């Protein structure tokens, strides 16, 4: 099975992110492979290990995004495609989906797996847009995958309200990965060394016959007006007195101020 896994290099949210004049301060930021993309990649690698085929990782972004691709290849992806074109800067999910659509059409893939959302914007729509553009069946938020399905079909599970949906997909298809789908593997030293020799193709929009106006800030349907740092936490309230009195006060405030009983 040939599988395409779009991956994204995102800001590491473990570190302090600073906002200045409605912009995120780039200085000192660390970039990592978005965690749901690791689940998508792990799922693809498991399918390949069980049934053969090839896993291709693709990313859209500036030179530093190449690090996410190298990690994907160190984990086991067979090759990487890097769409590095300044015109893609400022893309929204639709823009990314347009670029990925062009990449998918250049190859021949039985399955596309994306993360359920990216770790930076939490938008969760690129996978769905991509499925729509390619006219593929779509299952989002997959929590389990059956590896022994007959050729051309794939059984996936997703969590519904209190129960599990079991869906049999006809391939080609697109699924998005929940983080409970699997435990992504660590890149081993041998994997890291082997990744250096794997093919990594760098393409521009022109190579994909795309126009700059279709993607990036120009082609975006959404305009981000600015960023704001979350407000600092207000000081907590301290209650003192006999337990009965304090309990009555707290319950009263939960009802009148926090309105948790309504």
């Amino acid at each position, binding site marked *: 099975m040939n599988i395409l896994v779009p991956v994204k290099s995102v800001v590491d949210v473990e570190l302090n992110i600073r906002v200045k004049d409605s912009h995120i301060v780039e200085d000192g930021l*660390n970039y990592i492979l978005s965690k749901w993309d690791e689940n998508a990649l792990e799922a693809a690698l498991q399918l390949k290990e069980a049934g053969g085929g090839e896993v291709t990782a693709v990313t859209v972004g500036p030179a530093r995004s190449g690090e996410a691709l*190298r990690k994907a290849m160190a984990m086991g992806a067979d090759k990487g495609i890097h769409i590095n074109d300044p015109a893609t800067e400022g893309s929204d999910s639709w823009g990314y989906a347009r670029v990925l659509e062009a990449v998918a059409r250049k190859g021949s893939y039985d399955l596309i797996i994306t993360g359920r959302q990216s770790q930076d914007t939490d938008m969760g729509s690129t996978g769905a847009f991509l499925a729509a553009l390619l006219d593929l069946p779509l299952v989002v938020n997959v929590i389990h995958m059956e590896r022994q399905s007959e050729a051309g079909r794939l059984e996936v599970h997703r969590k519904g309200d209190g129960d599990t949906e079991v869906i049999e997909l006809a391939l080609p298809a697109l699924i998005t990965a929940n983080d409970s789908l699997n435990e992504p593997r660590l890149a*081993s030293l041998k994997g*890291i060394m082997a990744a250096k020799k794997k093919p990594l193709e760098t393409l521009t929009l022109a190579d994909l016959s795309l126009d700059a106006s279709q993607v990036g800030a120009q082609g975006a349907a959404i305009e981000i007006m600015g960023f704001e740092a979350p407000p600092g936490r207000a000081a907590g309230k301290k209650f003192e007195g006999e337990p009965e009195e304090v309990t009555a006060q707290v319950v009263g405030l939960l009802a009148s101020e926090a309105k948790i009983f309504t």
Partner: protein
Amino acid sequence: MDTISLDSLTALDTLLSDEEKLARDSARRFIREEFLPDIAGHFENATFPTEIIPRLGALGWLGASLEGYGCAGVGSVTYGLVLQELEYGDSGLRSLVSVQGSLAMYAIHRFGSPEQKERWLPPMAAGKAVGCFGLTEPDFGSDPGGMRTTAKSTSGGFILNGNKTWITNAPIADVLVVWAKLDGPGQEHIRGFILERGMEGLGTPPIKNKMSMRASHTGEINLTDCFVPAENILPGSGGLGSPLACLNQARMGIAWGAMGAARACFDAALEYSTSRMQFGMPIAGKQLIQKQLADMAIEITKASLTNLHFSRLKDKGRLSPIQVSMAKKNSVAQALTIARTARSILGANGISLEYAPVRHMLNLESVYTYEGTNEIHELIIGRGLTGVSAF
């Protein structure tokens, strides 16, 4: 006020390749997610999670810097970064990896026959066979040339007699690289032998009641008329220079590792001091504590840059043993001071295994003494600077 992390402060990442950072990140994640949750319990109970050894092999960390035979063949910086993360977990874990890769496997890789390499290195790289390295004896530590362990030629092989002590991994080792004097008293006759678990006359009793390196198996190697087949001598070994070459290999990794322990102590001290309230404010707001934290950050930055510089030289084949001594001595001595300071910043909580500093502090007492004591490294540097041996 925006704060700056230790990683941003040292800015080591700006000097690393993507591959080096990836290797570091894998080890960092493994330690935080899979190792740290249980390590205090292992330290307290003097056990080691031996079930993770094959996993260390699968991740490529055993004999990582060696070429071929299932080894990853990475550069010194990658190897150092991995060891640094492992020792952020515990010095016992890093010691196991150093002894396996830089001492036992390196000795076989450098001095072994093609058959010995084929037979032992792949299972050792995979973590299916554990190795140890027997040089130190009860009466010969810093002066290994005086060793009393002997090997006598006999029909089909050698008879070994003697005792080795303070041998990391000995009680659990499948493959034991042992150094002995072959048929004569001089140092030029020191040769390496590969012993295998189960050989008659080979005993590996554990050393008990250690107050340091508790999550590490340390033992003796007792040899009583132990017959070793002729094919188990390391053909390329000869003289004290052979085991010392192995130690030199391991010492750069120890310099990196000690900075992992130091970082763990710094992180604990920073977190504790910014949340511990006394006199109505976090103790991090006190000048005495800030000076301690500043000194820690400075020493970690200096030692990390030295380790990086010397490892780059090592990969170019331009690192001298004196520089290795500088790196080992400095990193470990600074790490020990940092661990003790962190222990003190944590006050009474500092003596609890619930926090990392006291465990690292106790472990580093061993690291300070093993692989060339702090003082021996000073003598090596002193001899290099003055041209006069003070041993």
